[in-house]
Structures are given as structure tokens and as C-alpha cells.
């Protein structure tokens, strides 16, 4: 690599490759699973441990009886394993003693058999119950998370990356699952094991126990030193992985451009630079993660050796029994296991709590604002929809013009949904400081077609985002049939507005299901009728299985244009009186667009339609065209009027001016 290039790359990645603090690591996502020294690291320290634990426990607290059984089993299992170990002492002593006999041996073995069987049974029962409990808890957790997620405002999805949300479902829920599954149990049994072993050791021989106790601080010190380093290298490894993954993702996405520009060599160079950097950091991280086992294990081998030697001396000098020595050296050799285990479990717990915290944070994200009290609902009747207006609500109280009211009863006024859309001095910004729409006012009569024209970022899509309340206005108000959208129940409002978006994403499922998404109770015949209106029928029947062809989310079996036609069919099947078309035919070529024009006219007839289109030919026959620039309407009128005005629209239409 040329030095110049190397310097460039170093400068480019300097800040990105700096190891992140633990706190930043907590936020890092997507690259966690499976890397780094297992157990030797914590992905981050949780912040509000107590509440998180409480909340996590609430997922399993419904199974108190089962959990009690589990804990009894854990105690049984640990205690039996301790006793079984201890049982060797009398047996061996019997064998070496004066009155050694086969029957004595048999008796000892019988007791051991019972203990073993009890222990194993407890072990199985504990695991069997725990699997069920933890899987149920995980399922509940995922369901809750998903349900909360679907209630979150569009804003949440606009401001959080998909990868981030995704990793909450995968990595974070996984680590919580691991903890529920085994960690708590192991922690519990580890503590019993340590305490029990220590007790039995003291009981067997207190002098030898001292040796083991002296070894503990040494072990802890080693443990701490290793953990500290392994965390440090782990965090720098994570930073390197993150940077490299980002580079890989970007390059793979732009791979075709790389090829067209003969840029393969440069790409490989840059990749190699990052790969090399990762390699160096990863070796260190893996090494420190890997030496925990050998160092700790062999420290207890040292303690085993010391006990054997001093124990031997004690046997000779002090009359310590051989059986006691046998079990004692076994204890001292096994002593590091629970300590080691505990150290690892503590880290898993931290990782899991950090994960749980992220999951709960997503759950706690502010959902869409509540519908107001006494909100207006919409009742669907056979051939019309009615507003159901509670007389107790503000709208009914302030209502002066009652000419639209079709009927009333004790509690409610009823009014027909016609689909008039009014914007009164609407001002809005996604971030309050940056105003996207300034003082927009407009009125669409029921059944009219209103078009929005303007450059990217002029605020066209924002208007539609406000009408169905993906976002709420900052000032001004939006009215449907004279009713402020804020006082209509949100779900009912949205049910009465059908949208066709530029985004051509379809759901995994059959073509039939995808179209039916617009109205779940639609019959097959209605679906086919809608597809015909959208000119989608002819290509659908030529698909492998016709309407039953399974579509993949981003599958390649349909072209962009065909996907848009299915989206249009979805809107066609809906009976909503208001229709929003946001660049709905942008991927359909002009010739096909001409073909579907008739169908579109049918969909739009009897509905109030708001159209956003880049192609001016699609908006020509609108009742009114709004030209938006930098968040304001600068011109309005129908096609003819606007052309005569010789203003911005005229310039755009004749190609004298540009849409930027």
C-alpha cells in the first residue's frame, strides 16, 4: 500500500477505531453475538439494575410454585453432589480400617446409589421445568416488545435504525433468555456449592482448609487482572468489528458501482487495512478471553498439590484419615470450578441486564398519544360511514351548525363521513427548530382531487403524514368534514384514509393476502376485481400460482412497477373515502400508467384524493394543484389557471425551471 493512501486511511478511521467506553458499548448493536471471549466480558453495565431486575422477574413470577420446585431441586442437586463426594470418606476408611467387610462396602454403596439417583432426578426436573418457564417468559417478552413496537409512532421508526430495533429482538432477547435459562440457577447452585464445600472442608480438616482459603485471594486477583484486560481488548475489538462491518455493508451495497468504476483494488486495500487492524486486536481479545480457564484451573491444581503434600504430612504426623485426605484433595481441586463459574455468570448477568434494559427502553418509548376523552368514532354501515359524536365531547358542545347531523340519540350525534379535508394555517417540523411546513391552508371538497407538486424536501409527503396523524401538527389544525382530526379516534381516522406509498414493499404471503390487506373481510372475488381495476390482474394470473403465489418481502419475483400495481389494488379494495397517492405510480412507465388511468379514475371517483407526483402529467386533471416550495404553497389553481399564470408551475411544466 502506498504511504499516502495509508495515511489517508489512518486519518479516516482514527476516531472510529478508538476503543469505546463501556457505556458506548452498551449502545452498540448488531455485532455482539458470538464475538469475543465468552463470559469474560460484559457488553456493558446496566444503569438501573434494581428496576430492570424487578421487571424481568415479573415475567416469571406467575410461576411461583414451579420456581419453588426448581429451587428445591437445585438445593437437592447441589447438596447430594456434595454428600456423594463426602461418602467416599467412610467407604475408604472402612476399607483401610480394622473391621473392613464386603457388607459394609455394600451398605455404603447403597446409600451412594440413592443419593446419586435423587441428585440426577432433581437435576433433570429442575432443567425441565426451567426450560418451560424461561421459554414462556421469552415468548411473553417478545410478544410484549412487538406489541409495544406496533403502537409506537412512525417517528420512532424514522429516528431509530432498523438494525438497532432488530438487535433488540435478537441479541438482547437472546442474552436475557440465556440468563433466565441457566444463569440464575447456576449462580444459586454455585453459591451453595462454595458454601457447602467450604463447610465440608472445615469439617474434614481445618488446617488444610486454611491452604485453600489462602489460595482464594490469589485466584480472585488473577481473575480480576485477566478480566480487566480482556474487557479492554474486547471493547477495542468491538470498535474494530463495528467499523469493519460498516465498511463491508457499504461496499456490498455499492458493489456494482465499485465494479463499474474499476474500484476493486482500492476497496480491497481499504478492507485489508481494517481487517489487519481487527486481526491484531482480536488476537489479544481472544487470548485474554482464553486464558481465564487455564490460569484459574491450574491455580487450583497448585492448591490441589499443596493440599496433597501437607495433607500427607498431616496423615503421618497428626493421624488425619486417608479417606478424609482423598475427599479433601478432590474438594480443593473442584473448588475453582464454582468460583470460575460465578465470575463468568456475573458477566453474563451484566450483559443480560444491559440487554433487558434496552428491550425495556424500547417498550417504554412513548407510544402514539392517547385518543382524547369522548373522542369521535366512526361507525361503518353498509353504504356509508357515520361519525359517532358523543354529546359530552367538546366538539358536540361547540357545534353551532347542525345541518350535517343525520340523526341523534341520547348520547350521540351522527354525521355522515364525506371526506372533506381542510388544513388551517398548519405549521410543522419534524424537529421543532426546523420548520418543514409553514402556515399551510387548503380545502378539498368531498370527491375532489388535489395535487401537490414541488421538489424533494418541499414538504409534500409531510402533509400526508399529518392528515392521518403519523405526526401531529405544531400549530394550526387539520379537519376532516369539519372535525379536527385530533378529536377522531386515531384508528377510525386511519381506516377512512387509504394510502398508496412510493415504497413498494410487500408482505411475505400470497398475492391474495397482500391485496386483502386493504380490507381483511374482502372476498376473493372482490380482491380479483380490485386487481383488475389496478391493471394488476393480467400479470398476476401469469405468475406461477396466480393469486396464491407467495411473495417475499423484498423478493425479486416482481418488478418495482408490478409491486406498485399491487399496492394500488390494495387501496382499491379499501372503502376509505379519502385516498392519498404518494408517488404511487413513479415506477410504472408512462405507457402502463396510461393503461391504468381508467382504473385509477374509478378508484378516485367518489373519493377525496390527495396526489403527490413528480411527473406533472399525472396531476394535470386535478381539481387543484398546489405548488410547494420550502414548506409553503407558492401557487395554487387548476392546470389551466396555473399555466395561464405563467408562474412556477408553468416553468416546471414547460421545463424552464428545475425541481431540486
Amino acid at each position, binding site marked *: 500500500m502506498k504511504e499516502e493512501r495509508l495515511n489517508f486511511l489512518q486519518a*479516516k478511521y482514527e476516531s472510529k477505531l478508538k476503543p469505546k467506553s463501556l457505556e458506548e458499548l452498551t449502545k452498540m448493536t448488531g455485532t455482539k453475538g*458470538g464475538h469475543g471471549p465468552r463470559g469474560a466480558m460484559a457488553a456493558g453495565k446496566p444503569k438501573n439494575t434494581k428496576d430492570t431486575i424487578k421487571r424481568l422477574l415479573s415475567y416469571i413470577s406467575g410461576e411461583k410454585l414451579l420456581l419453588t420446585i426448581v429451587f428445591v431441586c437445585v438445593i437437592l442437586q447441589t447438596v447430594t453432589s456434595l454428600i*456423594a463426594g463426602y461418602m*467416599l470418606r467412610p*467407604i*475408604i476408611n472402612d476399607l483401610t480400617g480394622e473391621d473392613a467387610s464386603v457388607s459394609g*462396602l455394600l451398605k455404603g*454403596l447403597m446409600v451412594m446409589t440413592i443419593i*446419586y439417583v435423587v441428585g440426577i432426578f432433581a*437435576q433433570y426436573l429442575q432443567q425441565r421445568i426451567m426450560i*418451560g418457564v424461561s*421459554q414462556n417468559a421469552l415468548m411473553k417478552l*417478545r*410478544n410484549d416488545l*412487538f406489541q409495544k413496537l*406496533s403502537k409506537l409512532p*412512525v417517528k420512532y*421508526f424514522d429516528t431509530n435504525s432498523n438494525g438497532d*430495533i*432488530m438487535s433488540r*429482538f*435478537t441479541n438482547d432477547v437472546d442474552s436475557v433468555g440465556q440468563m433466565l435459562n441457566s444463569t440464575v440457577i447456576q449462580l444459586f447452585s454455585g453459591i451453595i456449592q462454595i458454601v457447602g464445600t467450604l463447610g465440608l472442608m472445615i469439617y474434614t480438616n481445618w488446617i488444610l482448609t486454611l491452604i485453600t482459603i489462602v489460595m482464594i485471594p490469589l485466584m480472585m486477583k488473577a481473575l480480576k487482572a485477566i478480566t480487566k484486560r480482556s474487557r479492554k481488548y474486547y471493547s477495542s475489538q468491538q470498535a474494530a468489528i463495528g467499523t469493519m*462491518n460498516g465498511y463491508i*455493508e457499504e461496499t*456490498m451495497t455499492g*458493489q*456494482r*458501482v465499485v465494479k*463499474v*468504476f*474499476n474500484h476493486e483494488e482500492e476497496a480491497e486495500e481499504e478492507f*485489508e487495512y481494517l*481487517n489487519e487492524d481487527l486481526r491484531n486486536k*482480536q488476537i489479544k481479545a*481472544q487470548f485474554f478471553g*482464553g*486464558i481465564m480457564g*487455564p*490460569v484459574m484451573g491450574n491455580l487450583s*491444581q497448585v492448591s*490441589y498439590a*499443596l493440599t496433597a*503434600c501437607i495433607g*500427607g*504430612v498431616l496423615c503421618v504426623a497428626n493421624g488425619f484419615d486417608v479417606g478424609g485426605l*482423598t475427599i479433601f484433595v478432590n474438594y480443593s481441586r473442584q473448588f475453582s470450578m464454582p468460583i470460575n463459574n460465578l465470575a463468568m455468570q456475573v458477566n453474563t448477568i451484566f450483559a443480560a441486564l444491559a440487554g433487558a434494559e434496552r428491550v425495556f427502553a424500547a417498550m417504554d418509548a412513548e407510544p402514539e398519544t392517547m385518543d382524547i376523552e369522548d373522542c369521535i368514532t366512526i361507525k361503518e354501515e353498509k353504504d356509508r360511514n357515520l361519525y359517532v359524536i358523543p354529546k359530552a365531547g367538546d366538539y358536540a358542545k361547540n357545534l353551532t351548525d347542525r345541518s350535517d347531523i343525520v340523526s341523534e340519540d341520547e348520547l350521540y350525534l351522527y354525521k355522515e363521513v364525506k371526506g372533506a379535508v381542510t388544513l388551517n394555517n398548519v405549521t410543522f417540523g419534524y424537529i421543532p427548530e426546523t420548520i418543514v411546513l409553514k402556515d399551510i391552508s387548503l380545502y378539498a371538497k368531498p370527491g375532489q382531487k388535489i395535487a401537490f407538486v414541488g421538489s*424533494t424536501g418541499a414538504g409534500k409527503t409531510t402533509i400526508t403524514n399529518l392528515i392521518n396523524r403519523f405526526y401531529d401538527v405544531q400549530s394550526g389544525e387539520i379537519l376532516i368534514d369539519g372535525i379536527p382530526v385530533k378529536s377522531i379516534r386515531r384508528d377510525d381516522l*386511519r381506516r377512512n384514509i*387509504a*394510502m398508496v406509498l412510493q415504497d413498494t*414493499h410487500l408482505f411475505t404471503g400470497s398475492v391474495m393476502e397482500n391485496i386483502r*390487506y*386493504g380490507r381483511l373481510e374482502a372476498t376473493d372475488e372482490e380482491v380479483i376485481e380490485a386487481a383488475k381495476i389496478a391493471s394488476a390482474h393480467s400479470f398476476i394470473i401469469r405468475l406461477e400460482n396466480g393469486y396464491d403465489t407467495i411473495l417475499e418481502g423484498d423478493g425479486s419475483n416482481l418488478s418495482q412497477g408490478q409491486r406498485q400495481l399491487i399496492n394500488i389494488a390494495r387501496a382499491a379494495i379499501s372503502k376509505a373515502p379519502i385516498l392519498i397517492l404518494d408517488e404511487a405510480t413513479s*415506477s*410504472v*412507465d408512462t*405507457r402502463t400508467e396510461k393503461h391504468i388511468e381508467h382504473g385509477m379514475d374509478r378508484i378516485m371517483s367518489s373519493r377525496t384524493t390527495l396526489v403527490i407526483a413528480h411527473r406533472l402529467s399525472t396531476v394535470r386533471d386535478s381539481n387543484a394543484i398546489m405548488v410547494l416550495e420550502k414548506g409553503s404553497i407558492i401557487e395554487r389553481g387548476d392546470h389551466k389557471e396555473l399555466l395561464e399564470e405563467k408562474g412556477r408551475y408553468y416553468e416546471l*411544466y414547460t421545463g424552464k425551471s*428545475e425541481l*431540486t
Partner: protein
Amino acid sequence: MKKYSKYIRPYLSAFILGPILMIVEVIGEVLMPKLMANIIDLGIVNEDYAYIWGHGILMVIVALLMMVGGVGGAYFAAKASVGFSSDMRRDIFGKVQKMSFANLDQFSTGSLVTRMTNDTTQVQNLLNMMLRMMLRAPGMLIGGIIMAIVLNPDLAKVLLVALPIIIIVVVLSIKFVFPKFKIMQDKLDKLNSNVQEIMISIRVIKSFVREDYENVRFEESNSNLKESTLKAMKFIILLMPTMSLIMNFTTLAVVWFGGKEILAGRMDVGNLTAFITYITQILGSLLMVSFMFLQSSRAFASLARIREVLDCKIDINDDNAAQKEKLVNSGSVEFKDVSFKYYKNNSEWVLDHISFKIESGKTLGIIGSTGSGKTTLVSMIPRLYDADEGTILVDGVDTREYSLHNLREGVGMVLQKNVLFSGSISENLRWGNEEATQEELEQASKDAEAYEFISNKPEKFESELGQGGVNVSGGQKQRLCIARALLKKPKILILDDSTSAVDTATEARIRECFYGTLKDTTKIIIAQRISSVKEADVIMVLDDGKIAGMGTHDELLKSCVPYGEIYYSQVDKNEEVAE
């Protein structure tokens, strides 16, 4: 195995030293119980202090040596496994760089990223584990068996019963659990795709008020996942108690038979305790092997995915290019009876016997409805795809005679689905020409009508673009992409629907440079709008992979029906738009 030797060779010493050092640890572990038995049987029984101390110190030394072995083994295992996987990752990346567009079509972007990140990590973890366990488990097994036989051959017969049982259990469980794990993984994938859908389609879901519907769908796949997980886990949790059962009963048998031996005076107590330790070691190492197998299932699946990329046959290369040194000079393009289809077993051609010629410096406009083969046609010029039949000539020479590098150097292409990279605007533009001077950057961006908005940015050419160029508008992005291609100073410039988001007036100004800076460059323009190609020297109308007409605007309007249809779909028949 041969396929992997290139990843092992550079780290051969680590691959050998790691397991060897691990053996040190294993030998120590095998020796320790025997030393302990000696202390009991020879030291304590004979009340020999010197012997006890001597053996005690020996044991401490062995333990310390074991630690050295363990730590060293960990180091070399890390070095070898990381080295192996980094090299492999580099090769995957390199392989993708060499892939043709047709090769790339086989893999989704996401799956390529996963292969380079997750899958290589899986392989690395497996290798690391194997290097540390590979000799350890068999070493413990063999060492343990040898020591057991040495201690008491008769008692060792217990193993003849225990070992086969354990092996059968392990093999059976692997056989049963693997397919269950696979089902579990499939259900997990399904759940994840559910989550992905709600994120991508949140606006659709909310506008149709389908939150509850989606919740039900999710709950269904969630409970499917739970059921399949339970099915797999039920087997796993059966494994552990079964193993302990076998181990415990083996211990009991050893104590029973060994006890009788001691009673008969044929065995020492110390040896019995050592024997028990060995039995535990032997059975434990088998357990270790079985867990290794379980753990490795994911890694082997990853390895298979990686191999798919590495073994992918590159279908376009320049190995047979006869004139590797040749450069594109003038830029004339000729198609001779070219046919092509993406799926070779399809009966329909995507391009059906296309023949035409365009002289250097001329402009060719291509128009046609979606799916008529426009993009495919131009992709064949820089050999992004190779023709199935017929030949494509650039400067009168078959494109397959050029080296890919030189051919693509001569052809500038602005793709329909274009991408900008994170970095500054000037970094992005310099993709076209790394050594471009500031003047050249400015000239190219002026030609592409991008100069104005670039200068309006606070940091001008040094303004940072987010990944994918998120902070410029669609039209601005397209103009940057054009500028990038212009900087390459290509002999042939292809614009594939690259001004769709640019308005007609700006587009018209961009076209002006066709007669200035790009006077001598052959220009091929695919467009939706008739106005974009109206002034071209010649316009080609593609319909269903065939040329439906070729000629100037006026000629086509008279003679070519599809052209007329497209034209009138964009222009009102009655009121001709003012020019």
C-alpha cells in the same frame, strides 16, 4: 481440506504449537492423580516425609508447567484461529470484488455481509475451540485409559461397559438434536423477518390500522419458535442427567469392585482414588467431545455458506482476452446479433437478436417500457453481463478481447440504482479519477449541473455525505453520480435513467455538455421521458427485448407505433406543450 490449507500455512507454527502446549496441560492432568496416589500409598503408608515433600513439590511444579501450557496454548489458538478467519474474510471480500453482476445476482447484499461478519466469526470460534480441545479431549481419554489399565487392568474392564453406552448416547443425541436445531433456526429466521417487515412497512400497517393483525401474525411465529425450541431443548437437557447417571454408576461399580480388591489385599486405597479420578476424566472428555459437536453445528453451517461464495464460479473474467493492453480509443459500439437471458433455462430471451451500430461521438437514446431490456442492453457494453449469443464490438474489437480493467476504464456508466458512499463529496467524485485536480472536479460538477448546490453547502466539496448519500435530494444525488462518471473522461458514457429525479430544465442543461466537453464521447442515454432523448442522433425503441424501431424523433413518430404510444402518453394530444 486442501481448500483450507492456504489459511493454515501462514500460521502453521501456531496451528502446531497450540495443540502441543495443550498436550503439556493434558499430560499434567493425567499425571496428577497418580502422583497423589503415590503420596498416599508410598508416602503416608511408609511415613516417609521426604517422599511426601518431594512429591508435593513435584506436583506444584507440574501444576505450574500446566499453566504455562494452558496459557501458551490459548495464545497460539487465538493467533491461529484469528489468522485463519481474517484471511478467509479477506478472500471472501476479494472474491466478491471479482464477481460479475450475474454472480452478484445470486447473493443478496445482506447475505454477503453476514458471510463476511457473522459466519467468519462462527468459524473462528469453532477453530479456537477445536485447537484448544482437539488434543485435549482425546489426550485425556487415551491418557486416562492407559493410566487406568496400568493401575488395575481388571478394574479397567468396567470401561468396556461404560464407554460403549456413553458413545451410543452421544451419537444418538447428536443425530436427534441436529435436525431439531435446524427447525428451531428456521423458526427464528421467520420471526426475524416478521420484525423486519413491521419496521419497513410501518406506514402501511398504521395507515390500514393493521397493528393487531400484525400482532397476531407475530404471536403465531413466536409460539412456533417456542415450541420448536422446547422440542430441541428437551433432548439437550436429557443428555446431561443421562451422562451423570452413567458416570455415577461407573464410579459405584469401580468402588464396588475396587473395594473388593482392596479387601482381598490386591489393591491399594490410593490407587483406588486415582482410579476413580481417571474414570471421571475419561467420561468427562467424552462429554466434552459431544458438546463440541453440538456447538460446531452452527459453525459448520457457516462454513458451508462461506464456501458457497468462495466456490462460486466467476463467469466473467479476462483470462482469454487476446489484447489485454488495448485501450478504448474512439468509442464506437456495435451489437452483432446479440441475444441474452438471465436464467439460462428460460425459453424467453431478454434481448432477442439485437444488432445495431453507433459511431463514436454520437448520441443514442433508448426508450421502452419497463422490462423491455434497456438496462440489460447497455450492461453488456462494459461486460457487466456477457452475451449468450452474438458479439459486441467496441472500436471494432470484440469486448471480450479487452482486459476488463481497460474496457471499463473506457466506459463510464451511471447506474439506475446508484450509490454514493460515506465520505466527502470530493472523495465521492474522485472515484471517477483519483488524481483529479480541483479544477477538474469543478468542471465535471458544472457539466453535471451539480456545482451550484455543492457551492451552496457550507463546506462545499468537503461536505460529508452520509452512507448512501442520505443528505442530498434524489435529483442532487443523480447529478453527483453523473459528475462522478464524467470525471472518468470515458470514451463511452452510459446514462441509465439517471436523470429521472432531475427536472427537465436542468436535464436540458446537463445535455448541453454533450456538445461541449463530451463532444467526442459516445453517449448512450436510457430515459423514461421522450424529452430526454428527443435530440439524440438516433433513438432506439425497445419492446420485449426486440428493437421496435430506430431513427430520429420525427422518423419514429411517423413509423413506429410503440414510440407514438409512449410519446402521446407523455404529451397531451390536443395541446402541444410550449417549447
